[in-house]
């Protein structure tokens, strides 16, 4: 039986950073990794969660506390506190909240409804833009994503999958056969460091990367169109930002992927997600980490270009620290 529904964290329209053109990005909930720097901490668990938006919304009416059947809400000094050990995310509080200060992260969408929602911007996609499935890990719900991609393809809409690659081989194959673009994350070359920072080693990540590259290289003229592949490496201070890491990722690309990818993007760390951690009652290891300086990004690009990876495909993006 085909997976006809998916747990979706968010749908973002007019998205400019998830592939070419203007896109609608579907963030699916649940991730196979748990990167310490994650910019979408609410996307990691598969289960839906309730959260309280601190700024400017709550009027302190207390209806949420009254409505909670499990008694997991409390009006504290800084607002509504959620005891996540007992909260089952029944969303009773979300329903009664008059200001939408209580939010449910992780709504269930069925395929037809999602397709009609994410094609509303069709006129804005043009030839280049389209729909991106991201996460979490989009391919944790691969069956649904592949089904969606097939429908979009029939409608002539460009599709992209943003994946960290730590997924079953069958999932990877499914998207390679159907999607137009794979945004593939290579974060850390060293297996131990990968394990330390993302909670899983990179065996599967590298294996799937090779699979993607091989598929790309071997595709048959009469077969489905081969997808474009972009490699993306988040540059995180103290985690992925060493020249050694970049050099080793570059060497892997040079060995297996040089001809298959069309770009390798180094993306500088940003600190806009602090409030997301606060909302979830989590502390973030990168709370007071400043933005990376542009010179540092330049140096890393230099290391990447000298690593053996095709220098014409390397670039950096993202915001950087401004002096003064």
């Amino acid at each position: 039986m085909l997976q006809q529904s998916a747990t979706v964290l968010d749908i973002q329209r007019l998205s400019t950073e998830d592939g070419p053109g203007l896109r609608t990005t579907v963030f699916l909930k649940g991730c196979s990794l748990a990167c310490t720097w994650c910019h979408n901490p609410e996307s990691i668990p598969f289960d839906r969660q309730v959260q309280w938006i601190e700024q400017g919304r709550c009027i302190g009416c207390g209806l949420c506390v009254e409505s909670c059947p499990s008694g997991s809400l409390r009006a504290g000094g800084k607002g509504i506190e959620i005891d996540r050990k007992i909260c089952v995310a029944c969303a009773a509080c979300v329903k009664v909240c008059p200001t939408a200060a209580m939010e449910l992260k992780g709504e269930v969408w069925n395929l037809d409804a999602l397709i009609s929602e994410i094609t509303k911007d069709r006129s804005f996609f043009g030839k280049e833009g389209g729909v991106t499935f991201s996460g979490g890990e989009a391919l944790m719900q691969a069956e649904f994503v592949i089904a969606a991609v097939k429908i979009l393809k029939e409608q002539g809409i460009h599709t992209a999958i943003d994946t960290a690659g730590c997924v079953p081989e069958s999932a990877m194959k499914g998207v390679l056969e159907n999607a137009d673009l794979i945004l593939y994350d290579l974060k850390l070359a060293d297996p131990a460091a990968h394990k330390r920072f993302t909670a899983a080693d990179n065996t599967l990540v590298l294996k799937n990367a090779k699979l993607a590259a091989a598929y790309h290289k071997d595709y048959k003229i009469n077969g489905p169109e081969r997808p474009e592949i972009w490699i993306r490496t988040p540059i995180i201070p103290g985690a992925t930002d060493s020249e050694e890491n970049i050099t080793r990722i570059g060497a892997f690309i040079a060995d297996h992927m040089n001809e298959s990818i069309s770009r390798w993007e180094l993306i500088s760390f940003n600190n806009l997600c602090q409030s997301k951690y606060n909302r979830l009652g989590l502390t973030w290891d990168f709370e007071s980490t400043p933005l990376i300086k542009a010179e540092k990004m330049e140096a890393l690009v230099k290391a990447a270009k000298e690593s053996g990876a095709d220098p014409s495909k390397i670039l950096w993006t993202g915001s950087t620290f401004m002096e003064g």
Partner: protein
Amino acid sequence: MTALSETIKKPRNLSPRIEWLRDFYFEGADRDWNNEYLSFGTGTDWDVITDETFVYTMYSIMPSIDATDISTKLAARPIPIPDDFFSWDLVERRAWFVKKVMVDYVPKEILPGDLLAGSRFQLRVSKCLSKEENDERDRLLLGEQGLRQKTLAYHERGFGNCGPSPGHLIPGYEKIVKYGFKHQFEHICELYDQLSESEKSGPKGAQLRAMKTAATMPKEIAAQYSAICRELAEKAKSETRKAELLQMSENLKRVPWEGATTFWEAVMSLWISHMLVMADENYPGPGDSFGRLDQYLFPYWKKSVDEGMDPAFGKEILKCLWIHCNTVYDAQIRIGNQGITAGYGQLFTFSGMGKDGKDMSNDLTFALFDCIEDMTPMLEPKPNVRLHKNSPDKVIDRVVDMISESQGAPFLINFDERSMAGMLREGRMSGKEDLINMDNVFDYASVGCLENTMVGNDRSETVNCNLNLVKSLEYVLSDGTDLVEYYRMDGSVYPKIHDGVKTGDPREFKTFDEFFRAFALQLKNDVKRMVEMYNQSDIHRAKYTPTPYLSILVKGCAESATDISAGGAELKYVTIEGVTFATTVDSLLAIKYLVYDEKICSMDELIQALKDNWEGHELLQARAKNRAPKYGRDDDEADELARCIMELWADECWKYKSEASGEQFRAGMLSWNYWITYAPILFATPDGRKRGQFLSNAICPSNGMDINGPTANANSVGKALGGKNADGGDYDGYVNYLPNGTSHTITFSPAMLRDPGHKTKFKAFLKGYIENGGTALQINVLDADMLVEAQKKPEDYRHLLVRVTGYNAYFTSVGKEMQNEIIAREMQNKY
């Protein structure tokens, strides 16, 4: 923080001549020359100089009507009039008087280095009324039952306002440039000769005689300027300047009396024709628009370039036109910020499609782009660039580049397909398909801000009637009268009058459909009420304010021997601008959600909450604000209600024509600043808005409610206008209930345009808007920090332009409330 100031657009590519003229212009009140109002009267006791009905749409100015009248009259210089003056028909008196003043009394100068003549034209001159006419006019306007008091009450009770605004049309400049006034003069003479003797001695004869008098005014003025140029040439220090002045003198011997033969002559002819419209109407310029400048001036541009004109010199001529257009602001130069408060909207249209959807951009189109860029931040003339499905990348790329380089689009973007669908609907609904059809609709252009009209034969009244749609909702909630108290300026309360439809006690309505039917009845009644109010202004205009010079420039007036103010034009429309649209839609959505669908409260509780201005009902208010559906989020159900309301009120307008001039009413949506003016007046609304908070602007979603971003916002706007209909529509499947166009503003953060990659993405947005959006779009690119800083240090941000509701304004001059509003918009922009 100096870095921020440097990001503000500065003019560039200016030749020393233009640089000097520009700097001189910005000296403002310190200049030793200016174009402020010159007043002239007949010297009679009863003389009337100012036309108070001009300001009936501007509530804040209404209290000073008497003071302005008296001071203008005191300042007016009396000029001798012929003994039998008051035995002439009014239109002949007026033609004689304006011409006399312009030719014999208004000083004429050529500014240093200027390539165009025609410098002073802001007039306030006698209405030339006889004693009897004046008494009659006073009875119409003054006293308890007079139009002024009625207008005030209509306004203060929150219905809206109306009054006849001059300007706001596109005269037939193209014809003058091509054939000259001589051609028009001869045409009028022929028509006069065809009149019977009794017609000649009646109003028709008077009208045509007046137009003949007016038609020679430009010739005489050009001759005077020609002589001045010759004198200046003799004294010129450089040979180059001497040659320029001699050429100008030659040009003025030809135009605008005869057709232009060069680009320089064409622009000269255009300017003199245009400035005299403002002189004739005694109106400082708003909305007097040029039409498709890059189309009708192109043959002259091409010919002159082919004959050796340096395109850079051609642009200098155009830049002189820019300077001249900006002197309109001198009218009230001693009051306020160089007289600059907002764009006056001498609009010109460029680019856009021709027949069969082909793009019509040419070299002049791009020269105009250059001029706009080089002359920023000058506000006039106001560019309106037309885009469509076949707009070439070259045009769209230029548009996007210019948006990214200034603090927002230095022009309005008009969208051809949606606009033309509206124009064709107008032709169909008003039975004028012979004059608006597939063979000529592509030649439409816009006036003022974005109001679409036909060109050269269309008396397009566009901002005369402003109707607060949400008032009809109030009348449902209290069965045909005010729900809350409304106040006069002196603080006294208006008595409640049951002057609406008795739609019944809303507490008894069982379904939302029942409620909506009651709303429809009240709304129809309020359209009728507006029409009845406006009819009285129309009588005043038709009777007391002939403009024989303008009548020469609009087809139909000479042919029917009827002044344009009395309905002489071939096409004559008057727009009812719908105000508070999203507030109305959101309020109906909230009623449906709170009372009928979710049954969160009873109608009685909701009515009480509104009477209490939501005080003590905060929970209900929060639900209305945050939980009820809203227009502007691409929510099909909410947008369908928006569409229904739009169709309902817009179609109602077609049912009426004004009595005196026979103008067909039609719908448009341009809120000007009424969403602020009426904020403290109108009752607390069911969408959760308290009395005093801003209403919605034009067709835009309510402030901050478009939480799904610009694409969703654009889709909602397109749907509200009727969307697309695969089997029909009026043009290529497009439907547009608002023929006159509608103002839509979207603010983007500069990040959206930060590099070539993002600019490509932005282009995709514009192409999507062509498919799905409205008729016109104002794009702002701002960030809140910059605005907060500008608010704190206005002296450092004098040139910071913002665009609101389709008009440009300097941010530092818009007043704190509006500044806060703009900042709030920016803060909520999550992109």
